[in-house]
């Protein structure tokens, strides 16, 4: 393929691709990391074999695509153009799907989504509640495109925004459109993107750099991974437009090595973009030069912080540095550098093509557009969801996520990763919006949303996040390193039942100092998990301290397992499964747990037959005198 030298050549190629392909039927198989783990590769291969066997290759195409988002039910197969959606499809179903759906036009009922309330099967992907309440703009490409084939991206209008930007707008006009759109940084901070770009554009030093932050590391978050895996050209196109706007000729994609598929697809996409003339010198004949290098992160969470990330690209240790002069003015190699998150860049082609007005109509006045969340934890429909800003957390969890499994009660939702906080039930109607979440003591973060049910202990949750941060902080500044060390010690004490009321006061004091005194955003926001737990779940913390009780029955030192002799029927399942041999049968033919031997693994509860339910969790202090 020779390089495209003008927007006209690009459009000609687009028409050629579209007409060559015609109106084929298509089987798309979700090949995001989740579905790959569930056998998507084998499934795709089986479809290709079956299509060849039935001699349908001339009218049916099989396409492995990016993540479809409904990860709970993978592997996902969607048949186009009808948009028939089959969930948890396996190799054994392939022959039947081809025979029934593609040849006879019938449905394979058992693979369709079943509405849990009505029991009705739902045929089309857009009618499934998980998808119905979403507004998928950024993720729309994921389900249609084979990320390793640039033709797929071009067929759906790819790189048209780049041509428009290069030939119809000045860099200043692009910045104005982005400012006007109200787009705010999707990586967590929510800083206005256009303003950031303008700062870099106006900085006098040269050269300038445009950088993609794909060092997504929040526990439970995988929005950026899925975008980069599923539609890398979308991000690359956004980056080239941004580089043109700020005046950069060199760009970087910082992607963590823990994302092998994202690394691979990014590399392939960059090579293809070069081949077609979207990267390199004289892009599309515009005279603008730009190219991208990929930098692989080596596994430090803190490297997602802007100055740490730039240190890492420079070949130094990924540690934040004081940023009293912004990185947009003095960043990579002390030059003006525009760093945006994956999702932020992915928005750019849409804003350029459809305009700021279109973008602003989605979301709230202060937080425009859509936001992708990874909805995980104790929720029925785990997956990636894209919704307009301003949707309530309740709608996301209960309408899209279909609520909490096992008839359990909702307890809290953690947003914003380790820098965010937990929000209780009374805040479920809070709209997801940068400012509203911050006001409530959490933050948007990059879009992790971890749902917790009544079996989750909030003290243990805070302890988990502080443990994560204490080990993932760079350890450079004293408040963050030593402060987190002490917070972790205190939280460990409290979960062991050794905490005092002074400890709670000490936690509050540590939070207030770490928040203002830490060097970087990681340290400053690291207190949010603890502060939000103290604020919204103070009673639960006090129960651990004053009553030595863990109300959720999680903290092992504070609970004991007990077999109710009235309910035990002596079936022996618990004794057979107990890994510590702590359960014996008494003369009365009921079982009893030796508290000294019990390791509190909870296996006895899970194996005790539903009809007996003889094993129960009780506060540990009930046994302390007896033992």
């Amino acid at each position: 393929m020779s390089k495209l030298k003008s927007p006209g050549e690009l459009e000609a190629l687009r028409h050629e691709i579209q007409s060559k392909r015609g109106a084929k039927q298509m089987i798309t198989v979700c090949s995001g990391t989740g579905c790959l783990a569930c056998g998507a590769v084998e499934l795709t291969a089986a479809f290709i074999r079956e299509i060849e066997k039935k001699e349908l290759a001339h009218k049916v195409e099989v396409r492995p695509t990016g993540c479809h988002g409904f990860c709970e039910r993978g592997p996902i197969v969607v048949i186009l153009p009808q948009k028939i959606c089959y969930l948890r499809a396996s190799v054994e179903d392939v022959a039947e799907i081809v025979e029934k759906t593609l040849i006879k036009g019938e449905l394979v009922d058992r693979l369709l989504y079943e509405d849990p309330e009505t029991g009705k099967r739902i045929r089309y992907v857009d009618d499934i509640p998980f998808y119905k309440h979403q507004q998928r703009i950024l993720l729309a490409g994921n389900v249609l495109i084979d990320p390793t084939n640039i033709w797929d991206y071009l067929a759906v209008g790819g790189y048209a925004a780049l041509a428009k930007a290069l030939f119809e707008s000045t860099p200043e006009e692009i910045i104005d459109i982005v400012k006007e759109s109200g787009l705010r940084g999707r990586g967590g901070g929510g800083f206005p993107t256009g303003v950031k770009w303008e700062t870099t554009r106006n900085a006098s030093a040269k050269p300038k750099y445009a950088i993609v932050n794909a060092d997504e590391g929040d526990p439970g978050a995988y929005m950026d991974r899925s975008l980069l895996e599923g539609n890398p050209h979308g991000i690359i196109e956004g980056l080239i437009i941004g580089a043109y706007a700020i005046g950069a000729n060199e760009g970087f994609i910082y992607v963590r090595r823990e994302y092998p598929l994202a690394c691979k697809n990014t590399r392939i996409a960059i090579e293809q973009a070069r081949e077609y003339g979207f990267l390199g010198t004289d892009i599309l004949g515009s005279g603008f030069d730009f190219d991208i290098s990929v930098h692989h992160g080596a596994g430090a969470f803190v490297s997602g912080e802007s100055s740490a990330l730039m240190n890492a690209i420079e070949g130094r240790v990924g540690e934040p540095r004081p940023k009293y002069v912004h990185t947009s003015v003095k960043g990579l190699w002390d030059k003006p550098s525009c760093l945006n998150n994956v999702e932020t860049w992915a928005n750019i082609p849409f804003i350029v093509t459809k305009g700021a007005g279109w973008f602003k109509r989605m979301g709230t006045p202060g937080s425009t557009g859509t936001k992708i969340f990874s909805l995980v934890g104790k929720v029925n429909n785990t997956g990636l969801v894209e919704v307009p800003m301003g949707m309530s957390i309740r709608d996301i969890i209960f309408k899209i996520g279909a609520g909490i499994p096992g008839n359990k009660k909702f307890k809290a939702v953690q947003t914003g990763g380790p820098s965010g906080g937990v929000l209780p039930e009374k805040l479920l109607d809070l709209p997801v919006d940068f400012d509203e979440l911050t006001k409530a003591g959490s933050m948007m973060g990059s879009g992790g949303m971890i749902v917790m049910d009544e079996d989750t202990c909030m003290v243990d949750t805070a302890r988990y996040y502080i443990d994560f941060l204490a080990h993932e902080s760079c350890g450079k500044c004293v408040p963050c390193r030593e402060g987190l060390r002490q917070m972790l010690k205190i939280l460990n004490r409290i979960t062991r039942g050794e905490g005092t009321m002074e400890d709670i006061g000490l936690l509050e004091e540590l939070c207030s100092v770490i928040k203002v005194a830490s060097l970087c955003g990681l340290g400053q926001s690291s207190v949010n998990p603890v502060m939000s737990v103290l604020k919204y779940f103070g009673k639960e913390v006090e129960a651990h301290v004053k009553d030595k009780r863990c109300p959720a029955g999680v903290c092992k030192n504070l609970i004991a397992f007990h077999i109710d002799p009235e309910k035990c029927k002596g079936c022996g399942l618990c004794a057979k499964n107990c890994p510590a041999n702590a359960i014996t049968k008494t003369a009365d033919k009921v079982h009893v747990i030796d508290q000294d031997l019990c390791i509190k693994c909870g296996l006895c509860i899970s194996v005790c037959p539903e009809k007996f339910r003889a094993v129960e969790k009780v506060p540990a202090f009930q046994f302390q005198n007896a033992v």
Partner: protein
Amino acid sequence: MGTVAMKIDGKNVTADEGKTILQAALAAGIDIPHMCYLEQLEPYGACRLCMVEVTANKRTRMVASCAYPVKEGLEVKTDSEALRKVRKLLVELLWPLAPELAEKYGITASRFSNDHTDCSMCGKCVRYCSEIKKKEVLYFKGRGIEREIAAVPELVSECVYCQECFKECNGGLILKQAGMPWA
């Protein structure tokens, strides 16, 4: 390069552009507590003891004076209740590595159990080795609460002739660092 005029604790101070607040204050005879600052080295901003309150464009915030560049019209407060609260807690977190400041604030014990290390990780040794001597013998190993000072075994022979960082160490603790060949 020009100079800028600003106010530190109500006192008029002029400083060369490109200097930091801490440098301007020290030159004007105003003391700001500090631990990781060393004149010859790049600003590091790790100990946070040098935090001050700056007011610019009617906005006040707490910054590390060792890294914050001087600016025309800046108003700086080196002492306030909020700053003292931060410094006192830092003294307790660093206990017993900031004895002078502890005395100044009347702190006689820490409420924390500081069984971690006898090093404040100010990094003066590591940075001196790298920035002044261009040797990179010393480095920070691990991260977060597992961070520690370490030496590259293949390079430590350099230390026999140098040892210049020893005198920069707060109390010479680098000599006692576990794992160091000279321990």
